[in-house]
């Protein structure tokens, strides 16, 4: 139940990709017959990704190597190309590192940045966003939904504020695309990051939607592929796979979303009701259908992960004890959690292969895992200590 970390490729996607590794190895740029089929496939994939987010035309989709490149291209590309109009960028304090770090980089290149806070549920503070924007603001970059706490932002309200101040809006939809419907025209989004693996496509490919008329400087200069915005021979098998994944997702998203939301609600309810001192991280209703993020007081996330792993369940934690630093997730600190609360967080991200039996299994094993670790913990209050006496 750690789908956010990596998803399997859908079998139908693999089947669609195979011919472009075996037979149609030509370069889409070639005029001869070997280039024709690849060129057609590239167009089709572009159309399918455009349809998923209701882009006005397929040419608005630029294929990249994934969400990190798309975010870099949107942020650095818009900033460098439009610096005559302003040198200020606004973002939130719960963004992915591939948004935070390009913006931090820009602050070393003459730009200024403001990080707008979110509330306890992870929703962007819209009043604060208004105040954070200045005449110099050229770009606002906000996640469509947060991949960790699962909170979905009010895209349309954000775009009204941003456009009222005459800036461009970039949204990172890596976690959201394929889980919730996105309409870049209706929601008036200028640039949107989409990733293939997050919708059961291959890794190493993604896209940036760029609305017509939005000026962007390329990151990669070379042969002028992708309308000159992203040079380099197209990674055709992966792009075809991405297109297929987008097509499948568009068809199946609603039914699968409803199924996952049912499982998610069952898991959250089971854990919160079955275990004392358990709380939900993120918004109670405006959340991604696959995201169940629960924190347990007095214990640490990684020890829960190991316990679950021994019983055959994969999850993720809000504790960064496994990472290079000892700091817990910046997202959890941004929603106002104390360090020790953040450390006790356990993230389940559900996917296609998860069943109700698996959810019920997790609900059945978690109470004893938590009880055992609380018995070891010195932080446990008296009341729990009596309940959690160590078993011989």
């Amino acid at each position: 139940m750690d789908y956010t970390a990596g998803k399997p490729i859908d079998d139908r996607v693999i089947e669609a990709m195979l011919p472009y590794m075996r037979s149609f190895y030509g370069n889409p740029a070639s005029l001869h017959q070997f280039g024709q089929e690849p060129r057609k496939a590239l167009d089709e994939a572009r159309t399918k990704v455009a349809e998923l987010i209701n882009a006005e035309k397929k040419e608005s989709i630029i294929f990249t190597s994934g969400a990190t490149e798309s975010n870099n291209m949107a942020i650095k590309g818009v900033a460098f190309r439009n610096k005559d109009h302003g040198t200020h960028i606004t973002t939130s304090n719960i963004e992915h590192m591939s948004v935070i770090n390009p913006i931090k980089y820009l602050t070393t290149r003459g730009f200024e940045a403001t990080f707008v806070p979110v509330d306890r549920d992870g929703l962007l503070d819209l009043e604060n966003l208004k105040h954070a924007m200045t005449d110099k603001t050229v770009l606002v970059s906000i996640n469509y939904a947060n991949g960790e706490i699962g909170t979905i932002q009010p895209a349309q309200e954000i775009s009204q504020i941003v456009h009222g101040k005459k800036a461009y809006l970039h949204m990172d939809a890596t976690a959201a695309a394929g889980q919730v419907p996105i309409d870049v025209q209706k929601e008036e989004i200028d640039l949107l990051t989409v990733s293939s693996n997050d919708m059961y496509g291959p890794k190493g490919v993604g896209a940036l939607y760029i609305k017509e008329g939005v000026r962007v400087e390329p990151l990669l200069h070379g042969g002028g592929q992708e309308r000159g915005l992203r040079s380099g021979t197209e990674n055709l098998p992966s792009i075809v796979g991405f297109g297929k994944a987008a097509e499948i997702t568009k068809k199946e998203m609603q039914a699968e979303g409803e199924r996952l939301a049912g499982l998610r609600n069952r898991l959250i309810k089971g854990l919160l009701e079955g275990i004392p001192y358990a709380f939900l991280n993120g918004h109670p209703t405006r959340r991604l259908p696959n995201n169940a993020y629960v924190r347990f007081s007095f214990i640490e996330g990684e020890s829960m992960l190991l316990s679950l792993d021994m019983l055959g369940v994969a999850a993720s934690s809000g504790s960064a004890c496994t990472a290079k630093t000892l700091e817990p997730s910046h997202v959890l600190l941004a929603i106002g959690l104390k360090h020790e609360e953040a450390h006790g967080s356990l993230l389940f991200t559900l996917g296609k292969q998860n069943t109700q039996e698996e959810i019920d299994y997790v609900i059945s094993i978690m109470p004893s895992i938590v009880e055992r670790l609380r018995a070891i913990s010195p932080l446990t209050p008296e009341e729990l200590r009596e309940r959690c006496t160590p078993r011989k």
Partner: protein
Amino acid sequence: MEHFKNPRNMGEISDADGVGTVGNPVCGDLMTIYIKVKDNRLEDIKFKTFGCGAAIATSSMVTEIAKGKTLEEAMKITRANVADSLGGLPPVKMHCSNLAADALHAAIEDYYKKQKEKEVKK
């Protein structure tokens, strides 16, 4: 893994002769070690830990190594001893073994301090 699954000497000693707490829940690690001393030897030792799997395993391991040793011997237990006994720890986890050895030393120092206070009272 074994010391995480079945930690030894887990719990508290209500009439401990020395108690040592190190770490900080802010960093995700907090460890308390309780010792009972008889004839200059660690007669009993127990721990309580809030932390990751490695922190729990090293707490358990340090109590196993120290039990029955003289106070001087126990003071010589190093961070490396603890990690080695567990079959090595990845570099990012070395602070856990630091914590376990530090907690033991803190508990022994607490014992010495309490002994001195007793002597003063006499």
